[in-house]
């Protein structure tokens, strides 16, 4: 196989583009796709401060790298989930990436700072682990962005993630979820803007980006995610993609172009009923937000004073 651009030997074939790329032109493709997503959906302005949600995995580290390469002012936030060796290894990957490049990495550790971990929290709240984990991440990333004065939170959701979530939402016709499944969620009182600059890249491409760039990310899957529904949806979509390249892209971007707006009223109805949580002040449709209820059930403290500002900083990046 030859690179579509320069005709040198290719290192990767991307069937949905019907093209092969050498290392140099593959990196350019990834950067161009992210730039296109940022521009098309008006995700980030050049003068804005970005907080990248960093897990130590391929997507978040690729995202952080690409944003920095593009010249954005981007710090990272790593959330320690208390999932044994997996959390130890993922934290090490995030810290190594930051320290090797002189970047600022903020850290929150659930057991240390909030008195619970994802395994215990999910049991106490009677949620599946991925639900308790996602809830914690959303709340704490929003909170850290607000406290740190960041304009935008960037997450590493890729095309496969978005297509799989869409697949699940459509299977159950969760119209409120469909209404807010967007690559950009605008800022609202108490909540920063949230953006997904990797939506034009498949996760095979974000992983390949890390390999080519020499980024050490945590390869092993989270042990709590084993067998979850989201993985099943991804496998189903990849089976379709294997025989019909481009299906995931068409499914997701077709939804955004032709169907998403039809569900906006359902999502908006939920937003209208938000008010401050009695415990932490975060926007919620209930008296006490889901995060505070989770922490209280798990025996932790939802508003530890020592968490603000985030607790660990590595060397600031030279600008």
């Amino acid at each position, binding site marked *: 196989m030859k690179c579509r651009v320069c005709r040198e030997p290719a290192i*990767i*074939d991307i069937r949905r583009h019907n093209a092969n790329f050498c290392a140099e032109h593959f990196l350019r493709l990834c950067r161009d796709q992210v730039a296109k997503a940022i521009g098309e959906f008006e995700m980030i302005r050049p003068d804005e401060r970005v907080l990248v949600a960093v*897990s130590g995995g*391929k997507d978040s580290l690729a995202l952080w790298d690409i944003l920095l390469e593009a010249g954005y002012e981007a710090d990272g936030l790593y959330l320690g989930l208390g999932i044994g060796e997996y959390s130890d290894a993922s934290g090490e990957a995030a810290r190594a990436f930051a320290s090797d490049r002189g970047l600022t990495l903020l850290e929150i550790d659930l057991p240390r700072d909030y008195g619970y971990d994802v395994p215990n929290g999910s049991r106490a709240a009677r949620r599946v682990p991925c639900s308790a984990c996602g809830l914690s991440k959303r709340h704490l990333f929003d909170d850290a962005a607000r406290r740190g004065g960041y304009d935008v939170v960037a*997450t590493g959701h890729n095309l496969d993630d978005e297509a799989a979530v869409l697949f699940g939402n459509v299977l159950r016709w969760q119209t409120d979820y469909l209404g807010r499944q967007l690559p950009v969620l605008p800022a609202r009182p108490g909540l920063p803007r949230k953006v997904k600059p990797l939506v034009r890249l498949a996760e095979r491409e974000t992983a390949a980006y890390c390999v*080519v760039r020499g980024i050490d990310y945590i*390869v092993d*899957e989270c042990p709590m995610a084993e067998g979850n529904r989201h993985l099943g949806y991804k496998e189903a979509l990849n089976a379709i993609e*294997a025989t019909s390249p481009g299906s995931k892209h068409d499914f997701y971007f077709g939804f955004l172009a032709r169907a998403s707006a039809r569900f906006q009223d359902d999502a908006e109805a939920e937003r209208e009923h938000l008010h401050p949580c009695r415990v932490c002040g975060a926007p919620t449709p209930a008296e006490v937000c889901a995060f505070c209820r989770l922490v209280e059930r798990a025996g932790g403290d939802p508003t530890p004073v020592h968490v603000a500002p985030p607790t660990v900083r590595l060397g600031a990046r030279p600008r």
Partner: protein
Amino acid sequence: MKVLLRNPKREIEVSGSMQVSTLLARLDINRESVLVIRSDTLVAGDAWLDDSDDVEIRPVISGGALP
């Protein structure tokens, strides 16, 4: 060739020279869900592998909670 697989991590031995796409088909692995790495370098689907190669088949699907 030695082939490293993940989830769970294990190593298998595969005999004979073959293309990457053939190896994946023989192991019943969907090429959309993996990268193939030889000596720290990505290899495309038509690349030839032989008995002396150390190959990693790295899954790229992650399924944990998203923020």
